């Protein structure tokens, strides 16, 4: 076949020039901008069509470029991935929280190289995994923007070499090393090395709140200037004479744990320890007591004397108050009845009081039973007289070189001016403070110490029990462990790490033993010896009796200075989490104030809490009346809070406030310094004043309270659905009383059994699989607040600052409600941790228009932040009021950067600093402005534990899961787990406590997943 060619046009046939050009250009378009030379863009080939495109694009680009200032986020990937760091996987390092004398074995959770959470170390037989609010909050101090970032000489930056040189040149002759209590054996060794290098040197231990009285009393009666171990768990009768052992006294985590074992109620065999408390001002421990008696601070001597006499079978004299007198008699009887299982502790710093307490303990057989002298504790070693002498020496100009670590006497010593004057006379002053505190400010050299999470170290909180520190992060700033300085200056060739390692390697069997010690974080005695007493030398008792017998009578009004759980003697003052932690008893944040009794309020403030109108106006208005307290010519003006359970003629002020603004934004404007009100008597500092004047100034000052109303009874009825408490006698008489009450309440809807189905018109669905549940034992919850701070840390809960707390904007997912009941002059107090109840028939869920909060198949009430539009209806409809709204951009998550200046407090802005934000938990979303948030039952932990079980191909078990509050709780009051699992501890707990168990506001048929166990007080009377 021939190749016939068909043509389509004459052009093709003739292959004309025009045709060829057409063919060539058929699909070709000129580039729009490449028009003929010299012509404009609009004359280009296709300007019409593209013009709008370009216009649109350029407008959008210009808008993006101009309006959105996109903050630069720095994320630097690893060039070489470190072998042991897996992104997204947490590592836990055992270390030790050490602050002044407080020593707690902990685990630091490290995510991607940064410590973000502190957990208790279960291997420690002392704290058994318990923590406190301050331990929980300590991780935030690591990222404190106010930390000193480099060493200074006279306030200007210097290198370590320069400082070492300058200090070496400056040290001549004896050195005085001033520290707070040191529990580390190797540190003590380093101090001794320095002392050896400079003969005549000495080490002075100074504790802001010392236990001088106790130490000296023990020296007088037992021959040992030490503090024994207390064993509250062995005590059937616990008598505390003003010792806040659950809150601030000595080592509250351990004590709370021990105390809780005696308070845990076995429903089948209901026995409890009995706690009788004598105090002047409502404290956390006093609030937990079964029986509480109030006395004036000046009557402490009389009370202890009376108890001493009563225990020894003598007549009581000198107690005017009839209730107090019979209380002492009763207490003595109870103590004697439980001889060998009784314990008396006193918070007094008076040697004579403590001598008599020792005598009472001897009389009730505490030695070897509840008091153990075989292992003494090292938490506090300072003797006030030693420091007082140092102050004299400083002023006499006899100290040439002063090294200060931990102690901050310019702030904490009652006569700060004298300390300041003395410091001026010292040639060389060196501070190792990691922040520019009041004392460091006056020092020539400041060599900031590492944070404990950056440090190596060891500690011996109790004789024979060791705890180790290892760094969890490379030092953030140019800081140096102070022990290194000591070693360097004493001419030692090795640094602290080397000496620490060699010290321990020798003791624990070389490198392997050392590694194991670091891994465990603790070394415990291999065998626990039985508790032993000590031989009691009664020679000093007679003298003490005489001295106390002639104690001065108090004036009209007396003053007590006390420590707050979070703030302590000021150590917690710069920590926003602790400042925002409500005080368990007063529920106030961000300030100190004068605590007055309801009786005093009537005369002094003209407020009668029994008068509805006055009580209301006191409650609903944050500005509180300001009073002026004057002691020995010094005065303070502070707002007055009315706290029931305070002795009528006693007022109290918390120490630890009014600190230097150089410590960070959190201390700005928070409270006033009450240390100047202390005084020294004999060898110890006395934190009470027997005669003060108090007047109302007529001013007001707003106090940020997180709870304004404290009673659950109203004229319209007692809200027993909210809180249930009873006495042990009532319980024994009628064990099912609470259950019967519930049955009665729910009778219209079929009673307890059928309530779920009959309380609603909707069908009831099965809940197979996992069903998360929580149980809170109100008997063992002491209200200490560790869980609150743990929740903050775990869930990135925002700090909002005082102005926002004042407006009711605090964000806490977990709070501890405190209720008073009974007589307002000496009320019963009960604490109730309140978090999202994860209701199965949640009222919040069905009112959300966009289904941002809904129920998971595992019984969680979950919050979808990016779905939430912020109508707040859920918060209104939550009967437990646990939902929190982001009223402003507290977290810095807003897309408008920096638009909250002047809107929120500086503290909040500081919390959003790049440095501070390193504390955030990457597993938990940071909530932005305008959304609701609330307790999630730590869903990130649940998810992690489920995955872990899945990876190991096994069913999930209890030990996999611990929610943050549960883990932090020193008394194990919180139980959590899968309520559908028959073997889980939550199921067991619920099964074992059918009688005390209740749901809060059960009658609403919201079907909560949190059960509470009623508070039982160990009282013989049937009416609490």
């Amino acid at each position, binding site marked *: 076949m021939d190749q016939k060619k068909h043509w389509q046009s004459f052009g093709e046939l003739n292959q004309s020039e025009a045709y060829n050009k057409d063919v060539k250009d058929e699909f070709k378009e000129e580039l729009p901008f490449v028009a003929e030379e010299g012509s404009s863009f609009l004359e280009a080939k296709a300007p019409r069509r593209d013009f709008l495109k370009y216009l649109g694009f350029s407008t959008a680009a210009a808008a993006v470029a101009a309006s959105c200032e996109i903050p630069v986020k720095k994320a630097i990937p690893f060039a070489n991935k470190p072998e042991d760091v897996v992104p997204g996987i947490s590592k836990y390092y055992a270390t030790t929280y050490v602050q002044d004398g407080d020593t707690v074995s902990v685990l630091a959770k490290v995510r991607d190289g940064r410590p973000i959470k502190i957990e208790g170390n279960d291997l420690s037989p002392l704290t058994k995994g318990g923590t406190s609010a301050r331990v929980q909050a300590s991780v935030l101090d690591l990222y404190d923007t106010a930390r000193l970032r480099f060493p200074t000489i006279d306030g200007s930056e210097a290198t370590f070499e320069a400082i070492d040189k300058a200090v070496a040149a400056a040290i001549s002759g004896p050195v005085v090393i001033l520290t707070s209590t040191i529990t580390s054996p190797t540190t003590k060794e380093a101090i001794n090395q320095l002392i050896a290098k400079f003969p005549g040197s000495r080490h002075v231990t100074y504790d802001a709140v010392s236990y001088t009285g106790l130490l000296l009393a023990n020296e007088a009666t037992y021959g040992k200037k030490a503090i024994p171990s207390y064993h509250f768990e062995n005590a059937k009768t616990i008598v505390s004479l003003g010792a806040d052992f659950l809150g601030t006294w000595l080592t509250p985590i351990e004590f709370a744990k021990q105390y809780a074992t005696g308070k845990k109620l076995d429903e089948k065999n209901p026995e409890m320890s009995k706690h009788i408390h004598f105090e002047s001002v409502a404290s956390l421990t006093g609030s937990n007591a079964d029986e509480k008696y109030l006395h004036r601070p000046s009557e402490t001597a009389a009370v202890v004397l009376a108890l001493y006499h009563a225990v020894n079978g003598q007549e009581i004299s000198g107690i005017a108050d009839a209730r107090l007198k019979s209380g002492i008699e009763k207490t003595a009887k109870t103590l004697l009845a439980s001889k060998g299982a009784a314990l008396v502790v006193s918070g007094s710093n008076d040697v004579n009081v403590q001598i008599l307490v020792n005598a009472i303990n001897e009389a009730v057989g505490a030695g070897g039973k509840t008091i153990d002298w075989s292992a003494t504790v090292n938490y506090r070693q300072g003797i006030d007289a030693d420091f007082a002498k140092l102050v004299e020496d400083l002023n006499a100009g006899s100290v040439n070189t002063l090294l200060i670590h931990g102690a901050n006497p310019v702030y904490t010593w009652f006569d700060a001016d004298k300390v300041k004057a003395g410091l001026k006379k010292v040639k060389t002053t060196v501070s190792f403070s990691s922040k520019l505190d009041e004392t460091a400010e006056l020092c020539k050299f400041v060599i900031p110490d590492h944070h404990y999470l950056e440090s190596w170290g060891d500690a011996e909180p109790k004789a024979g029990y060791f705890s180790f520190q290892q760094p969890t992060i490379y030092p953030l700033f140019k800081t140096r462990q102070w022990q290194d300085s000591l070693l360097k200056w004493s001419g030692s060739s090795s640094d602290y790490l080397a000496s620490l390692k060699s010290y321990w390697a020798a003791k624990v069997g070389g490198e392997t033993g050392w590694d194991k010690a670091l891994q465990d974080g603790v070394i415990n005695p291999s065998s626990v010896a039985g508790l032993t007493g000590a031989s009691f030398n009664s020679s000093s008792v007679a003298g003490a009796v005489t001295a106390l017998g002639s104690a001065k009578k108090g004036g009209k009004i007396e003053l007590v200075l006390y420590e707050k759980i979070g703030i302590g003697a000021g150590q917690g003052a710069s920590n926003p989490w602790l400042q925002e932690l409500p005080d368990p008893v007063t529920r106030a944040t961000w300030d100190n104030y004068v605590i007055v009794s309801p009786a005093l309020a009537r005369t002094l403030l003209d407020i009668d809490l029994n008068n509805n109108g006055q009580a209301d106006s006191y409650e609903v208005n944050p500005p509180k009346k300001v009073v002026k307290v004057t002691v020995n010519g010094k005065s303070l003006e502070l707002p007055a809070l009315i706290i029931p359970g305070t002795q009528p003629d006693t007022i109290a002020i918390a120490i630890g406030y009014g600190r230097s603004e150089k410590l960070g934004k959190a201390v700005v404007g928070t409270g006033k310094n009450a240390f100047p009100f202390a005084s020294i008597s004999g060898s110890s500092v006395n934190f009470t004043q027997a005669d003060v004047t108090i007047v109302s100034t007529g001013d007001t000052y707003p106090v940020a309270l997180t*709870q304004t109303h404290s009673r659950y009874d109203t004229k319209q009825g007692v809200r027993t659905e909210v809180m249930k408490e009873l006495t042990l006698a009532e319980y024994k008489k009628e064990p099912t009383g609470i259950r019967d009450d519930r049955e009665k309440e729910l009778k219209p809807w079929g009673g307890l059994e059928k309530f779920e189905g009959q309380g609603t018109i909707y069908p009831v669905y099965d809940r197979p699989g996992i069903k998360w549940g929580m149980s809170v034992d109100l008997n063992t919850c002491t209200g200490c607040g560790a869980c609150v701070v743990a929740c903050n840390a775990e869930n990135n809960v925002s700090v909002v600052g005082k102005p926002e707390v004042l407006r009711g904007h605090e964000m806490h997912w977990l709070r501890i409600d405190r209720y008073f009941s009974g007589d307002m002059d000496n009320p019963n107090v009960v604490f109730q941790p309140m978090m999202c109840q994860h209701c199965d028939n949640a009222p919040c869920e069905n009112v959300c228009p*966009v289904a941002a909060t809904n129920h998971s198949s595992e019984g969680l009430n979950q919050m979808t932040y990016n779905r939430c539009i912020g109508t707040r209806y859920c918060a209104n409809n939550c009967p437990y009021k646990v939902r929190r709204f982001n009223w402003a951009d507290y977290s810095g998550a807003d897309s408008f950067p920096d638009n909250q200046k002047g809107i*929120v407090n500086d503290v909040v802005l500081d919390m959003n600093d790049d440095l501070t934000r390193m504390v955030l938990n990457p597993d938990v979303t940071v909530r932005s402005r305008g959304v609701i948030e609330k307790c999630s039952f730590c869903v990130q932990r649940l998810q992690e534990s489920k995955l872990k079980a899945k990876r190991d191909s096994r069913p999930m078990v209890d030990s996999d899961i611990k929610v943050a509050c549960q883990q932090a709780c020193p008394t194990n009051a919180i139980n959590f787990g899968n309520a559908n699992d028959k073997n889980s501890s939550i199921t067991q707990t619920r099964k074992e406590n059918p009688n005390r168990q209740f749901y809060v506001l059960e009658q609403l048929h919201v079907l909560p997943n949190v059960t509470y166990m009623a508070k039982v007080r160990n009282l013989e009377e049937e009416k609490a």
Partner: protein
Amino acid sequence: MHLKYESQLREPLVSGNKTYHQVTEDIIRPIEAKPSRLWYIGFYIAVALLCFGIYSIYRDVTYGIGQWNLNKTIGWGWDITNFVWWVGIGHAGTLISAILLLFRQGWRTGVNRAAEAMTIFAVMCAGQFPIWHMGRVWMAFFVLPYPNTRGPLWVNFNSPLLWDVFAISTYFTVSLLFWYSGLLPDLATVRDRAFTKLRKRLYGIASFGWSGSTKHWQRHESLSLVLAGLSTPLVLSVHTIVSFDFATSVVPGWHTTIFPPYFVAGAIFSGFAMVQTLMVIIRKVFEMEDYITMGHIEAMNKVIVLTGSIVGIAYLTELFMGWYSQNKYEGYTFWYSRAYLFSPYGWSYWGMMACNVLSPQIFWFRKMRRNLFVTFFMSIIVNIGMWFERFVIIVTSLYRDYLPSSWSVYYSPSIWEIGFYAGTFGLFFTCFFLFAKYFPVIAVAEIKYVLKTSGESFKDNMGHIEAENLETFVHEQSHAH
């Protein structure tokens, strides 16, 4: 068959010796004249308030709802109080136009136009609150159920807030249509009288080519009836659904089955009060005394005393139930938080009682019903009272609910909450001033409709004829004019 004659016992609805032309002149004239000095002053004040409101909202959107003084316990305060208040006000218009139309209440013609406009503006104001009270208003479109790319996410049909979205948007749409369809003949009249090209053009567009043909009138009448029928249930449903925002919750003081009728009665009460406020001003400023007669004023005052008494009974019922139920939480809310004068918010409850229940009782007296000053004063009092009612319901229920630990500190609004509220007044009056300037404030066509039967001179005339000669009267009566 439309009745041509109305009893002499009934008051004329239009006073004076009016002709059709005069009616047109009287009502349309203000539109064609330059606005008065008073109008300008009023308008600028309204715009200034509106600007303040816009700035308040700007702050709330930019810095967060923390600009308001709400807190963890009181999640809604002035925002939702104002929302319910404005929605309530927005009730009278439709009630007057729809229900009264169905009931053949001739007197509605004098006030329906302005009342409907008021309704629309009030609902616009009300709508601002649920929108801007959202924490993330830029996500507000999440409440609209439309197929979307956000996964299987859908709105929550269980939520009363979602019902609100539907109820209010429906109500607004229907009210707007009703109002506008009624405007058509009058807009055409304005167009026909226009003296500038622009006016002619704009009113021409606005009147949709109305020519006044019989067909147009017939369709117009049917449409009015259909819309009236549609609106009637809406009058009841909107506030019923608004009341569900509260009634379906668990909060003591909200969780009440009495709410729907109680809210509807309250809404009509406040709506009529607001109509009174506006009418008393309009008839004075625009010299419309002939069209908005004392008869109109009196009729509305009668509605006010009726609905005021209904809410009064509702309040007492609530109090009774607070005691009778023996529920300690409700008991506390009703008997302490509210009825106890010396409780922190007791003043607001008794303020509400005084304004809503006690003071309207003055309208049992005819003299008072026909007193302009009393009417105006009372209309303001009622609106204050109804604002208090919503405040009482929302705030006094929330601030002390179940857990005493969470009882709130005293809530009072921040300047930006007040600003937002003021801003809605700005919006309302800006709209209303523009409406009064550019639209006939009284329905011209409808006035003409009743003029021959209920106009004063025509009535008088018929009265004379009847008295003189019955035959002529019957003839006149059946005569088609």
